[in-house]
């Protein structure tokens, strides 16, 4: 090849196409979720006082420290500040009552990060939402602390629903509905149920001036944050719509004394549905990737939530319903693949 000698250009980089990539990253996604959770955190501080901030701060610091320590032990790259541990910390704090002792968020977060996430290999490999797993662990271990640490909101106004001090609206209504079914305290119970269906009651549920876990009370502020994630295209409408829609429809059909008399607005706004539907059921890692799978996933979450709320032992079922549906994600993805173009 004397005549046509070629020269290898050693400075050239050779790699497979495509040669252009997005500027998006896992960090950007995770920190966007953090930003999206801030309005609800601010609301929690307003309603429950600085205590909400301390609990959340403790959870976040514990989450990051736990992740770093485990990654060091596993001798893998330390990505504790990629935002995902922070999200887990915030979400765990959002799922505990504001009045819990300081070690509750610590234990819950350590469990969430260590058992919920790293036992399976870390971010991307966890089958269930770590924060919800942490909450489930706390609920099973310290049920009394996890269900009585409510405090009546100090900011904002109180309404008829939270007249019973230290209980969440869902607990109040559940007790009233049970009484109605058993035929005891009928008048008082009916008054409670009716007061929950007033515009004033909806409004306090919407803005968040009711008892509940730190981050779940204000539908308004959660939706503001979720809107940001929609705008960034990090979540889509399928799971929130099918989840909330299912709860609303089933709540309307079965939630009242007779069929089709349930208070669907109450079922949408009370408890952790808004937080769960927009921020936890949509957790990328643990929800299906296929569009049809996402619809089914949301429907399943809604169905289980209503079953737990209406006939289960707990007043609220959002977190368990998401955890159970998380386990169906691999199957849903496998059997709900979209139709290939031209197939």
């Amino acid at each position, binding site marked *: 090849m004397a005549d*046509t000698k070629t020269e290898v250009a050693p400075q050239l980089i050779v790699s*497979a196409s495509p040669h252009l990539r997005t500027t*998006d990253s896992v960090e950007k996604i995770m920190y966007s979720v953090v930003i999206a959770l801030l309005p609800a955190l601010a609301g929690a501080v307003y309603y429950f006082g600085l205590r909400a901030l301390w609990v959340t701060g403790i959870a976040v610091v514990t989450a990051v420290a736990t992740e770093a320590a485990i990654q060091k032990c596993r001798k893998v790259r330390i990505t504790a500040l990629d935002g995902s541990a922070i999200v887990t910390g915030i979400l765990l704090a959002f799922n505990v009552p504001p009045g819990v002792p300081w070690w509750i968020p610590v234990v819950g977060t350590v469990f969430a990060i260590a058992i919920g996430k790293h036992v399976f290999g870390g971010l991307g490999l966890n089958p269930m939402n770590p924060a919800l797993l942490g909450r489930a662990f706390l609920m099973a271990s310290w049920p009394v602390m996890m269900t009585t640490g409510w405090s009546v909101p100090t900011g904002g106004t109180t309404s008829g629903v939270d007249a019973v001090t230290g209980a969440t609206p869902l607990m109040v209504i559940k007790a009233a509905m049970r009484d109605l079914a058993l035929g005891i305290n009928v008048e008082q119970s009916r008054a409670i149920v009716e007061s929950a269906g007033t515009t004033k009651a909806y409004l306090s549920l919407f803005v968040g001036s009711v008892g509940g876990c730190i981050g779940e009370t204000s539908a308004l502020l959660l939706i503001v944050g979720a809107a940001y994630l929609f705008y960034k295209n990090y979540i889509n409408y399928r799971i929130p719509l099918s989840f909330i829609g299912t709860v609303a429809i089933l709540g309307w059909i079965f939630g009242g004394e007779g069929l089709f008399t349930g208070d669907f607005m109450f079922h949408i706004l009370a408890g952790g549905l808004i937080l769960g539907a927009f921020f936890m059921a949509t957790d990328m*890692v643990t929800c299906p990737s296929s569009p049809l799978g996402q619809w089914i996933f949301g429907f399943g979450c809604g169905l289980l939530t209503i079953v737990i709320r209406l006939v289960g032992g707990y007043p609220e079922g959002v977190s368990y319903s998401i955890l159970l549906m998380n386990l169906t994600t691999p199957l849903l993805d496998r059997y709900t693949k979209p139709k290939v173009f031209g197939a």
Partner: protein
Amino acid sequence: MISTITRTFRGGIHPPDHKALSAAKAIEVMPLSARVVIPLQQHIGRISEAIVQVGDRVLRGQPVSKPSGPVSVSSHASLSGTVKAIESYPHPLGQAAPAVVIESDGLDEPHIDFAFNSKYMSLTPEEMKNLIADAGITGMGGATFPTHIKLMPPQDKPIDTVILNGAECEPYLTSDHRLMLEYPEDIVHGLRIIMKVLGVTKGFVAIEKNKPDAIAIFSELLKNDGQISLCPLKVKYPQGAEKQLIYATTRRQVPAGKLPMEVGCVVQNVGTAKAIYEAVAFQKPLIERVVTVTGAVREPKNLLVRIGTSVRELIEYCGGFTEEPGKVIMGGPMMGIAQFTLDVPIIKGSSGIVVMSRGEVKEYEPQECIACAQCVDVCPMNLMPTLIVSYVENERWDLAKEAGIMNCMECGSCAFVCPAGRNVMHLMRFGKFMVQEMEKAEKK
């Protein structure tokens, strides 16, 4: 006819287009090089057979190889000179491949006079087809499928629509854009020839809306045309992919694993249409093409280049690198191939040379998939890359096949959007290869 509706397909991405670097640069004729390297394989199909020997004098447009089978095309000398060697030479597709090396005598003496035949539209479809085959034309958009094969659909697959692809959806590239601005009549003549060969009365010129000047020219040209319509396309990658383009213009879906003729369509690139016109009206073989040289070069240009000119010469003609080069890509940055040497020749499918500086080339440390499903949202073939890639990583070729991996056209949208920096496209490509291997093994 002018369609006023902007059409598109489901999925796709919006990469930064960088077209402003070269879009306003008129096509410039590149001076002849001292030497050209004509690979015997510039097309999909069987490699052509050399018909010249070392020492022979060849003239511009003279065939130097002949087809070795039905799906094969000849290559031609792109200038006059002496055959110096027929040997293995670096090929832009990445491997070394046999090529005819011609040293120019500087005379550029033509093989025949390439005179204009004013009665070319009176030629029979058969005669036209033969002229196109003799001219060694392949698709010039990048896939290099032999053009005459596309013009010979089997009897049971009637064609009713011809679509000219002027989408040019790859970032950076402007060669088709310039052709449409500077040679619109030739392109339409070429389309009429294709329509006559196929006996078709419905033609489309499909152009992405980021080229309003080209759309204006073709609307003027086609405003009273009863057969050919202009179809403006939404700006989105990969709008120019054959199946997506057919869907956008006709709403027909090419069945999975099948060719456009299944739905009565033939798609040709606008550059190919011009080459077809020149082959039929002038008997001119495909020996030159427009190449966009852009990116980190001093003066980005659209160059009319003889086939066989080396990439090194093109870059030097554009003033060289502005800074230390990282990647030199033949084709666009989405589907083009990163070269390891500058001594590869321009071939019939080379639409551009994109130089990325070292600073622009990012290295990615792939993270675990977080199942964000953005690849699912953008896949124009409706696949689930995230799922398929997990099958590939676990060597489950059976599941990958079941999930439709063979429908992947390798547009790279999935890898483009991946926030975890995963080599999704690479794994898909590897999976396709392994599925083919599995199928071969099953047949034995």
